[in-house]
């Protein structure tokens, strides 16, 4: 992957290629931005541009191919082991960094999900991050820069990445998957600017299943508890899909809020469900819709903290149906 092959992020590309050309590459970068927007691709493209025998990341030379296969001796990857990056990992990584680069001019280190470093690991990295050996390039990737230690952030040159505009994702979806514009709009909007999500495995969930879910959700009434409990049981069954389902609910209620605020249809996510959205907006007001969105955000926060899923869903649905 060369810089040119990465979609968007023109400014970031320009900064990196200019610094590379003028020899002003910093020793530590912090690539921050939502998941799946291409931070890792960009880091690898930069790595290729550095090690390439032809100095441009050609993709054909031995060095470039080694980067592509991630077996270049001077490319070090630090990934979370389980849920976090541990201090032992950082220590052994630091030992590697004491050595001179083997083939390339620099040692390149990618630290993925840098925010998952434990406090100890992050602190252990501080001195290295401040003054590494002269020929080291450290790249930290994170979707949550605010969860990093301030002391880590201050030692890196920041390079924030932004979400892709929905139109770009939509165009790519239509080009590569050949789906119609309504479907691609829904997918693009739900992906929240992340290619990873838009092209992910959950396409079926986001398209067909979404309609069914929303139909059941809007069909719930506060009077009859049993269907609510059934539905709660049904959606809390699969732990991995649950966040996506909540996201679908959230997008739907956001649409309702938009309609209540008199925004045009083009700001909606669920373009194919306009009628339903208008119908629901008829029986809601701003205060009630804000309360529902709040409940959704709250439950997502709770799920991060390992609550009883089914109970949380039951409470949520009771609130949503009210």
């Amino acid at each position: 992957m060369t810089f040119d092959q990465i979609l968007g992020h023109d400014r970031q590309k320009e900064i990196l290629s200019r610094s590379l050309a003028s020899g002003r590459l910093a020793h530590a970068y912090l690539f921050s931005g939502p998941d799946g927007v291409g931070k890792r691709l960009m880091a690898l493209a930069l790595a290729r541009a550095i090690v390439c025998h032809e100095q441009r990341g050609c993709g054909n030379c031995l060095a470039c191919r080694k980067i592509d296969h991630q077996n270049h001796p001077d490319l070090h990857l630090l990934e979370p082991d389980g849920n976090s990056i541990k201090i032992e990992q950082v220590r052994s990584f630091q030992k590697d960094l004491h050595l001179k680069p083997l083939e390339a001019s620099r040692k390149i280190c990618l630290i993925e999900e840098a925010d998952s470093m434990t406090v100890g690991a992050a602190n252990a990295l501080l001195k290295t991050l401040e003054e590494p050996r002269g020929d080291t390039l450290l790249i930290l990737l994170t979707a949550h820069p605010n969860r990093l230690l301030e002391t880590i952030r201050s030692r890196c040159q920041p390079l924030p990445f932004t979400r892709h505009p929905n139109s770009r994702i939509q165009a790519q979806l239509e080009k590569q998957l050949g789906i119609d514009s309504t479907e691609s709009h829904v997918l693009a909007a739900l992906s929240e600017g992340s290619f990873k999500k838009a092209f992910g495995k959950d396409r079926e969930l986001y398209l067909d299943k979404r309609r069914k879910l929303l139909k059941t959700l809007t069909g719930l009434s506060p009077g009859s508890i049993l269907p609510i409990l059934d539905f709660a049981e049904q959606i809390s069954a699969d732990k991995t899909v649950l966040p996506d389902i909540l996201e679908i609910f959230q997008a739907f209620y956001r649409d309702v809020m938009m309609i209540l605020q008199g925004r045009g249809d083009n700001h909606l996510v669920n373009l194919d469900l306009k009628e339903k959205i208008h119908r629901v907006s008829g029986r809601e007001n701003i205060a009630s819709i804000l309360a529902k969105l709040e409940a959704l955000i709250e439950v997502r926060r709770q799920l991060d903290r390992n609550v009883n899923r089914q109970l949380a869903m039951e409470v949520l649905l009771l609130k949503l149906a009210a």
Partner: protein
Amino acid sequence: MAYLVLARKWRPQYFADLIGQEHVSQTLANAIRSGRIHHAFLFTGARGVGKTSAARILAKALNCETGLTDQPCNTCSSCTEITSGQGMDVIEIDGASNTGVDDVRELRENIRYMPSRSRFKIFIIDEVHMLSTNAFNALLKTLEEPPEHAKFIFATTEPHKIPITILSRCQRFDFRKIPLAKVAVRLREISTAEELTISDRSLGLIARQGEGSMRDALSTFDQVLAFSGDQVEDEAVQTLLGMVDRRLLLDTVEAILQRDSRRALESAHRVDQLGLALRRFTQDLLEMFRGMVICKVVDEPAELLDMVGDELKVLKLLAEDASLEDLQRIVTLLMKTQLELVNSNSPLLALEMSLVRLATLAPSQDLGKLISHIESLERRLTSAPLPTYRPQAVPKAPAAEPPPPKKPEAPVATTTDSKRWQGLVDMVKQSRPMLGSVLEHGRPLKLEAPILDVGYPKGSFMIGQLQEDDIRHDLEALATEYFGTTIKLKVSMVDAEAQDAPKSLVETRQEEETDRMRRLREDAVEHPALKAVQDVFGGRIKKVIPIDKGFV
């Protein structure tokens, strides 16, 4: 040699280079000059303010071959070794990597030996807060009475994690955050030395980005240089730093204050489209409201806000119209939003919800106002003549013909006029609270069909407000609706002291308040119990203080 980032290249090498930490550098320099050098130092402070640099400079000063000096030469072998981090006698330890008790034991083994070449053996332990409790405790005895040739320098950002037994054995120096202006001056020095072209404004923006940390500012500066080369344009800096356009911010503030949730949402949409960081936007928005709160409570807000004249003026104007309670509620809600944004899975939604909520906040009522309102209601109920009078008075008024021609020029409004005025103001307040409060301050000079003449004291800023086209237009429309005929608005200046003009609603309210005080006093003086006390003790009444804050 690889490129060195500015923060490393321009690491301070003399005490004088330590920007904003004069209290530290002077104390240390004096200590060295007078030869009273403590054996353990603790440097604390935020990131990037110069702790590690100060530690190295101190080490150089202690070990410089030119002798104990507050001006290390930076050329002798000792100094250069320290700079490159290879000194035999200056041992820089990464406290976060060597955290265990074994590491400290190793250090204690080591400390017994004399320095190989220099005067002192200096241990710099950076990030010392990461040492384990056992490690700290193992260090205690050594730290209390180290050999004469040993010096300790600890540096940390988190002094609260260090046991008090360690703290009490060290001389502690708290490094401050560096003021904006000083960072900007240093940046200017560096840019001159590096032969860069950059405007003061851009440097100011970069310095602000650092939030009091030199290294943060320099990292940002590096980023800017990487983007635009040696010639830095203002615009490039703004886009790169994701600066939110002032216009957009003001627009959002206005939308929130005017409770126009649709416009507020539009701003969120624009922010998102421009790809600005939402947190940044919220932060800036918060700062605007903070500024407005400060404008409300402080007479000379310029000192507390780093803002230039124009911005301050706009902010003041906006603040005039909003009530302090509202502003404080907005600030509180925005702070909450900011926290939510950090961990939110869908930041845009969080921002949108918060804006909608802010724009739909019910206007808060000042408690004092509410109380005085109830008071005046009560008074009307108890002290006013029977309400049945009024319906009779209304039909009588048109019947009495002679009075009107008597004083055609007199600006004094009749009672019915003042009631109509009150009614109009109430109605305006319902739909446009801010406009209503402007009217409350006005004196209704004339209320005759085609013309509505409102007077304000000379120099009141409200005159300017009412003269703005759209406001005037709105007001005329409302008045037309109220009176049922077309109304032209006229704004005139009156002498603030003039007695003949009708009082504005605010003034009437104040008068009622003093009236109440007078009656309270009379009541108190007439009270039989008080009289009895006076008779017995022969006292004199100095002061009457109402004990309730409520009703008569």
